[in-house]
């Protein structure tokens, strides 16, 4: 079984927000809900970097750990999904998530948020594959159609890559080798010195 992963190559991302638009259009998510977003770090300064972020489908997902109704599950492909029929909109997954992935459709008095919505890696939800119910609640299930997430498919610079972790790693490794230079991973210095 594949272990699905996203990787955003910050050396390539040009902050076009194509992934955000593709996602919103493909899944017809409501206003105010953004399953994916692009963050520009050091915006306007020399060496600014942009990176696209959504649910990273963690192995030990914090959202799943803190959910009071235990509505999260991990598919065989390593995709973290949740059951909206169980979700009570408490917001705990948003407090715990490192990436700000969980989104809520409402913001009303008395703290009502509505059911949580997040990136599904285009893998739908617990409803039957490609059923109208699944489309309505979770958006398109592209994985069931043998396709990869649309955000990555539509990335104009191929900065955002999605797919089997091994293949994603191979592509990235190849890029790093071609680019040359020193490893640019954070923490490299702490671990290995200069």
């Amino acid at each position: 079984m594949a272990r699905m992963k996203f990787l955003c190559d910050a050396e390539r991302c040009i902050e076009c927000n194509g992934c955000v638009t593709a996602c919103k259009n493909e899944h017809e998510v409501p206003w105010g809900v953004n399953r994916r977003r692009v963050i520009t770090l050091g915006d306007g300064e020399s060496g600014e970097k942009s990176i696209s972020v959504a649910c990273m489908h963690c192995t030990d997902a914090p959202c799943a750990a803190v959910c009071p109704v235990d509505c999260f599950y991990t598919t065989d492909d390593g995709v973290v999904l949740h059951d909206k029929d169980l979700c009570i909109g408490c917001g705990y997954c948003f407090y715990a998530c490192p990436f700000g992935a969980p989104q809520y459709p409402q913001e009303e008095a008395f703290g009502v948020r509505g059911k949580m919505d997040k990136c599904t890696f285009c893998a739908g939800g617990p409803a039957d594959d490609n059923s109208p119910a699944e489309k309505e609640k979770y958006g398109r299930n592209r994985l069931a159609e043998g396709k990869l997430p649309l955000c990555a498919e539509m990335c104009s610079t191929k900065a955002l890559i999605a797919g089997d972790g091994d293949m994603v790693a191979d592509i990235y490794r190849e890029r790093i080798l071609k680019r040359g230079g020193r490893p640019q991973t954070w923490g490299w210095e702490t671990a290995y010195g200069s």
Partner: protein
Amino acid sequence: MKDTTTSNTPQALSKRRRMKAMAWSFLFIVLSAMILPTASYLVSGEQAHAQVTNDQNQRANFWRAVREGAPGYSAVSGPEAGVFINNGGQNWRQLRNGMIANYGGWAIIIGLGVIALFFLVRGRIKIDEEASGMSVPRWKTWERVMHWYTAILFVLLTISGLSMLFGRAVLIPLLGAKGFSAWANLSINVHNYVGPFFAIGVFAMLLFWVKNNIPTGTDMAWFAKGGGLFSKAHPSAGKLNGGEKVWFWIVIFVGLVAVCGSGLVLIGWMAQLGFVDSTRGTMQLAHQVHAIASIVWVVVFFGHAYIGTLGTEGALEGMTTGRVSVEWAKQHHDLWYEEVKDQAGIAEDTTSAPAPSTAAS
């Protein structure tokens, strides 16, 4: 002496020379092994270090700052949309799932256990004197309404709140995922909608009962005697004894300030009023304060509920009918009884008497 004279033979001399040469060679090798590797410092000590700093991986530090939560810009609007990594989440997860859920659960079990044990050892505290049928007014109607309004909401909030914290471990095995989800959905809505009305009740208690709860020297003496909990003695007390005053101040500080205050942060009202921001860090902190203080409050509440019902004969009547028997008043609140004994009467004819006068207030 004998050694030196005998060692002057040519053979002995050459052997000694060999030994000496070996020793010096050995020393030379050892010192070289230690010193030579550091010789490069003589050549390029300072320079080499300077080069390392200049050649430092700037990008690594850039991403380290991002890892630590440095915000950027995002075209997507929303609170903290520009923050790539939310660091507080992991701490919050570990505190909630670890310390709060574990110690909190044990605190509740141990609290109930201690009360059960106390009941088994001490039993119900009975009224010593024979009942005369005479009673004195203790709580006015509006005070009782305020008490039971807050008490009922407290119980609703406790059940719904504990369901949210412990339900996944305790109730999902019993109700199933769907059943518990329905229960949790009801719980969170009850909790969110009832909470602010509950806070109003607690705030009213602060306003109207604070005058009864100022600590006095009598309370110190009451505490010195352990409140009569562990002895047959009945230390003197005014309208409220030291224990009741402590409960009142726990309700105010743990309850009103910590629990109700953090609750209003969690449903977003404090942010609406501009007292706090609505970032995840604020919510995580508010949730932790809310959970910890609530458990403290609930455990102390168990004690209050026990003493007010099962633990003390004649105490509950004060809050239900508004009147307590003269014997109970003399036994538990002797100083207060001295103040109100002229109002003593037969319970039958007083059930209707205080009602009209207090309804207006």
